[in-house]
């Protein structure tokens, strides 16, 4: 694995929600498109996700949400990055996210938010650009 690859990212879900159709499909799309995807599965905590991200030397973490827990967990994750002074890991969110929360997530430092119905090429192009 080339650790310096900018298109190397960790995907996973935090909390107890186990709806993973979206993230599993997106993981496949991205890896088919040449991204190096490490899939951390469901039931991660902010700590465990960050731990995996550091171990794997990824450039970005992508999280998927469905049940309304996105702000709770992304606040925890961004606080954790701040406390540990990590500024070289970018953040991506996907899933059922109301528009106002999308804005709030961006204020927290999330670079891209993908909501249901986003087409494959849009995701790939946006991420290629964002991870540049």
């Amino acid at each position, binding site marked *: 694995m080339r650790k310096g690859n900018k298109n190397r990212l960790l995907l996973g879900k935090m*909390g*107890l929600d186990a709806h*993973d159709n979206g993230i599993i499909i997106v993981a496949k799309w991205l890896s088919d498109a040449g991204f190096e995807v490490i899939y951390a599965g*469901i039931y991660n905590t902010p700590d465990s996700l960050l731990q995996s991200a550091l171990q794997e030397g990824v450039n970005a973490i992508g999280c998927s949400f469905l049940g*309304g827990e996105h702000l709770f967990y992304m606040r925890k994750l961004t606080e954790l990055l701040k406390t540990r002074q990590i500024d070289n890991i970018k953040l991506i969110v996907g899933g059922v996210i109301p528009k106002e929360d999308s804005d709030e997530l961006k204020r927290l430092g999330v670079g891209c938010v993908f*909501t249901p119905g986003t087409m494959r090429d849009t995701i790939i192009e946006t991420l290629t650009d964002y991870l540049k």
Partner: protein
Amino acid sequence: MNPNKTRTIQTSYLEGERLPHFKSLSGREYKEVYTPQDVSTDPGLPGIYPFTRGIHKTMYRGRLWTRRQQSGYRSGKESNERIKYLLSVGQTGINMDPDLPTHLGLDPDNPLAQGDVGLQGSSLVIYEDMVDLYRDIPLDRVSNTMIVEAPTSAVIIAQYLLLARERGTPWENLIGTIMNCPLSQFVGPTYQAITTFFSVEHAVKIALDVMETMIQRSPKWNIVNINAYNIRETGVNAVQEAAFSLALAQDYARKLVERGLAVDRFAPRIGFFSAVHMDVFEEIAKLRAMRRIWARIMKEKFKAKNERSMWFRTACQTSALPLTAQEPLNNIVRAGIQTLAAALAGVQSIHTTGYDEAFSLPTEESHKLSIRTQQIVAYETGITKSVDPLGGSYLVERLTDELDEEIWELLKVIEDRGGFVQCFLDRWVEDQITEMRYRMGDDMNSGQQPIVGVNLFRDESDSTKISIFRHSDSWQQQRIQEIIDHKKNRPKEPVKRALDALERQTRERPHENCIEPIMRAVEARATLGEIMDAIRKAIDFKRPGM
């Protein structure tokens, strides 16, 4: 109008607007036209074996389907208010959904649970929550579905039985359903989701304990509901949905027989919960085929004598997969059509999914619209006035036969591999699901499965705003504190004694039914998470954080 759009409209007029293909959602090719030559079997009559046309002779003429919208958020108190609201606008049954920590057997003060308390359902932890949830609701007059799987179904049913006793409602009069299926309920049979917090083998054992208990004490109660809906929502097709769920039901039936229960005693209390996706005729044919196959399985394999044992009774939910975040009002039309299909298929109850599904839990307004959708289909369209109005349609009868055959074949494959539970443990099910998910993603992306407003006629400028349900952050903290206080303020000794007794029985006499000791623990004011952890310890199962 942008020039590209204008060009598309002109071209489609000149060339004639056409579908991209004539395949069904599950990939079968629709013929140009169906004729009497396509039909080989006589579908018979409703109310008569094999019940292809309906389990009752009079169907909706005798009684409409039950309107049963799922609800649940925050705690018992708030959910009780929503239940009463729903009943006031015409809901006819309750469908109660607990939050994720409750489903997984974790208390709200567990660090893993904190972000999910009260979000996707109601936080039910102690006996008092059950008291709040069903306040003013007569347990022997309103049919109540509890969406909870084993192993936590054992705690919820224990709390429920204690509530009935406290209120003086005899257990034999309780009406309702506990979903209780550890494999299909939570999010369908995906491996990591249901093996992380409990052992699947032991969850099946506890599910059977709940079934056995309720069969003996509450003969009107439905002991298990196979969640074909959640199986389908993982992305599998109509044939897989049907075969997986029927195979799973057979597994339970066999295990109940092994426990010495007579088939005609328990089979009438097994129910299903199916999906109704967008392909109208394929979905109707699927449900007709499932009725026929279940009747055949019960009569021929299990030698049932009572006709009720052969009834494939199913609740339905309109599929959320085709609902879109783009132009959300379109979802009202989709759910309306799916509701119509469910009624044409002759199901026993319907949950019409809210148009705001791609954004949040349903608002009160969206919940009401779902009920109105069903009422319009029931009262205004006339489709309920004759039983199985599509019976005898060349197309529908042919599809029913085809699906019957394919489902039956897949059932055989699963049987040859040792049944559904075994297929799950072997991760065969997981492989099937993953393959179908990828296909679902590709079909959505390529337009193979047309979705208006998403991969077809997409309008990036659309800015439809709908009001959505919002959670309050401060509420979660309050709820967590409530449970911490509960644990601090109760007498400690009885809790410890009851949990020890439960742990000891589970360890030393693992085959014994666990409901009695769980009831003792609930009475001693133990929480749901503590009861689950006692069992986890006894079976040496380590959950995350333990």
